[in-house]
């Protein structure tokens, strides 16, 4: 055994560390060490990237639930079987899945692991005076000059020049210097590491801000018709998602009335195969009043890109639509229904919805299928709408009756079409017009055409943290990429004539090219300084010529 050649020293630190069977404590230590490695961070980042690319192409339930439903049903996407597989892996809600959370936590553990030693090192380094240099002649950039000044004075003069260029300096007399000569050491560029640390720290702020928002805020949506109101309470909203730690008492509890809604449309224009600009609302806005108790606490406008803030709550304009107001009476004049119905644009320029008229008598319910043409014209014998401008609204009403299942607590549009019967006749009404049916003893009046307006209402704490995080991120990022550390030494050895032999040397930790460009100028300034004269000395030997081996210095 002893005759075996000595093994080369093992340099693989990981292999050295690996004990035979790690105990639980050692496993944690090992994992921690592993997580602190830059390459681990890189793999985690790549995993994050891989996850987000999947999420780009697989529809995400919180974002577009309808598409996800279509994928599950096999109507869209790669088919129901594949969708079931995706579902099992949680791929329809990646950002809500446990493994995404794990990934983020690992990344933050890794980040912390990286940052602790970096911050410590940074603080130590920022406090420490610039270290003295040896073997200066071996550095990339160096120059030797003869100075008429004695060493101490030459060094002091150089130090002044360096400080003027905002380098931190430390002058060492001959006794304290490793070269045995008076020397000034200078450095600059801590902003790089400081910026990088600030940049990485900003992720904690961002995460904290996001978490505060998710836990202590709420988000909801509500549609209101002109002249009506909604209340800032959990039941006041159409959809309501409180954060985990958001209590009922945290609501501001006001009531919002939609005074008026206005939409403007681009003039119609034949754009060939481009989008028809008449479809596009150029502007839409809601005028609202906020009531607290019996008082009007605030009034204002909500528009896209123009949210309304009241108390801790913000109101955003999200969508809008038409809400025709109908009255339905029996022939005897009994009012069965007087209400508005929110329509949505289901086809270009055609707005549809369902009005549930009679829900109590389970076997004898009535529902109205509505289709609105805001700007009705006859084109080629067909009824169409010329635009979304409600210039000539025409409402088509078809009537369903039977056991429509309206008593179920579901949107009216989802009534049971299988179980019901549709009347053959339908009504075409203009505003103010009343139509009566032959087959049923009913009269329908199209009373008017207000708008409905869709709001997002939310409390979003944590925005301050997020903004601070974003700011810190940018403020840190720029120096972390563009600042660079460099050190400069000026070392003066006593010369026979009472002057000194001065060595100037510099090295850059990063951006060697930039430093190479800056060096001649710096060296000239230092030469002038130690020379005591105005002209740069001419007997210098400059050993660094930037780009001297670049074969692309082409004749142009």
């Amino acid at each position: 055994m002893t005759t075996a050649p000595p093994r080369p020293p093992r340099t693989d630190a990981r292999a050295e560390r690996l004990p035979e069977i790690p105990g639980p404590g050692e496993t944690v230590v090992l994992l921690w060490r592993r997580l602190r490695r830059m390459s681990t961070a890189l793999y985690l980042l790549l995993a994050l990237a891989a996850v987000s690319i999947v999420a780009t192409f697989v529809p995400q339930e919180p974002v577009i639930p309808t598409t996800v439903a279509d994928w599950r049903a096999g109507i869209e996407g790669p088919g129901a079987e594949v969708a079931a597989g995706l579902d099992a892996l949680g791929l329809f809600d990646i950002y809500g899945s446990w493994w995404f959370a794990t990934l983020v936590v690992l990344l933050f553990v890794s980040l912390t692991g990286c940052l602790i030693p970096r911050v410590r090192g940074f603080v130590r380094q920022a406090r420490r005076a610039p270290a003295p240099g040896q073997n200066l002649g071996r550095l990339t950039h160096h120059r030797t000059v003869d100075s008429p000044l004695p060493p101490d004075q030459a060094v002091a003069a150089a130090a002044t020049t360096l400080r003027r260029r905002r380098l931190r300096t430390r002058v060492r007399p001959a006794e304290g210097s490793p070269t045995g000569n008076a020397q000034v050491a200078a450095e600059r560029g801590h902003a790089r590491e400081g910026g990088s640390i600030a940049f990485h720290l900003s992720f904690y702020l961002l995460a904290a801000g996001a978490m505060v928002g998710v836990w202590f805020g709420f988000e909801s949506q509500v549609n209101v018709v002109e002249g009506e109101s909604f209340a800032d309470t959990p039941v006041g909203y159409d959809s309501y998602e409180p954060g985990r730690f958001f209590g009922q008492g945290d609501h501001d509890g006001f009531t919002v009335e939609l005074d008026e809604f206005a939409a403007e449309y681009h003039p119609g224009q034949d754009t060939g195969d481009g989008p028809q600009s008449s479809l596009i609302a150029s502007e839409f806005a809601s005028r609202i009043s906020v009531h607290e108790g019996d008082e009007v606490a605030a009034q204002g406008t909500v528009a896209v890109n123009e949210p309304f803030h009241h108390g801790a709550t913000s109101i955003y304009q999200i969508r809008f639509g038409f809400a025709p107001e109908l009255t339905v009476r029996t022939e005897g004049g009994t009012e069965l229904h007087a209400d508005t119905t929110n329509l949505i644009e289901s086809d270009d320029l055609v707005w549809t919805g369902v009005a549930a008229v009679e829900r109590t008598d389970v076997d004898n319910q009535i529902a109205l299928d509505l289709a609105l043409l805001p700007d009705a014209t006859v084109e080629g014998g067909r009824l169409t709408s010329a635009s979304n401008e409600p210039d000539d609204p025409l409402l088509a009403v078809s009537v369903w009756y039977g056991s429509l299942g309206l008593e179920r607590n579901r949107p009216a549009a989802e009534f049971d079409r299988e179980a019901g019967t549709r009347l053959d006749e339908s009504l075409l009404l203009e505003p103010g017009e009343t139509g009566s049916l032959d087959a049923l003893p009913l009269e329908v009046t199209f009373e008017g055409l207000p708008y409905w307006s869709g709001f997002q209402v939310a409390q979003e704490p944590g925005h301050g943290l997020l903004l601070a995080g974003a700011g810190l991120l940018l403020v840190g990022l720029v120096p972390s990429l563009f600042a660079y550390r460099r050190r400069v030494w000026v070392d003066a050895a006593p010369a026979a004539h009472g002057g000194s032999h001065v060595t100037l040397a510099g090295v850059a930790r990063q951006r060697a090219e930039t430093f190479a460009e800056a060096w001649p100028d710096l060296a000239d300034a230092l030469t002038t300084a130690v020379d005591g004269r105005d002209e740069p000395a001419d007997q210098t030997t400059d050993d660094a010529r930037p780009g001297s081996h670049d074969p692309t210095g082409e004749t142009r």
Partner: protein
Amino acid sequence: MLDLPLGDLSNALFNAAFITYLVAMVLAFARLAFTRVGVGGAPLTTRGAGLWAGRGATALAIVGAAVHLGSIVTRGLAAGHVPWSNMYEYSSFLAFGTVVVGLVVVQRRLGYGHLMGFVLALAILSMTSALLLFTEPTPLVPSLQSWWINVHTSAAMGASTIFIIGFMATALYLVKRTAERRVGISGTGAAPTKPAGADTAPAEPGAGEPTLREDGEGFDDFVTDSDDPHDAATDPLAQRDALSPVTFPGLPFLLVSLYAFWVWGSPVVALLAGSVAALLGISVWYAVPKLPPSDKLDQLAYRMTAFAFPIWTFAVIAGALWAQEAWGRYWGWDPKETGSFFTWVLYAGYLHARSTRGWRGTRAAWLGVAAFIALAVTYYAVNLFVVGLHSYAGV
């Protein structure tokens, strides 16, 4: 509000710029062809016809860019809003930015004028995609009517143009480095000699600071007597022979023509697109000996990417602020948002990789390529094929 004659003028200027760029590109490649390789590290030289071709290329590129700017401005006037609200406008602007950054940085600052052919080729590709996605100027939907569109979109596009140049450098680096390695030139792509296992830099004179980390740039610049990798350069033309003259046109031809066939279903279009790709591929192969040394290309790639990254970061942040105003949520993992985040993470990965042992060099460069592909996919695919809130910004 929509002034179509102005729109027509914009289109005419666009076409003029397109043709000018095409001619400039041909001249720039001619210049490259007439550029002679110096042996043993001697500089490249261009004489006679090459010199004139180069001057012509530069002049035409400048004229083209000026005309192109005219097209962008008139487009904005025609639409009555900033000319970057749909894919056509983005792509047009990107091409313009690419030419400008190419002229200013690649040619002026760095003196790599003989690479302008590649810059112009990328610009022309972007303009071609603009042509394919052409739409008439339209008014803005309300959510785009915001001060933020100027901030967010211009930052995103500014960053993208710089990323494009960075990508060009990265791709050329990969080719050049491969060639160099095959002829036996060591380079900075290889891990610098240092004790493995330690994440600290080797002792620097007078300072054994363990907290100094190695960095992407300049690690090898501590000591003068390091090997100059280019002393080993034998005949640069050997680099060309080290690369396959079949793969270089062949692979792009195959990929691009298959893709074109898949999209347009026309063999003629597929053949045409494939041939253009093959031409580009073979010019890269031909240019290999004339490319700057791989470490210079790597540096260019890094600089461009590092410069663009904060701008991109800012664009993403501005986007989040805008989404907050417009939709009441700053981030919703909408496909476009996810895509930008993905791109951002990959570029951050590239920046990390360049200072990570075992990753710097070609591995990091591949990450850079991946990041750029992500950028392009976010740009095109998400708008074209994926449904989300951003889709209105669509074609």
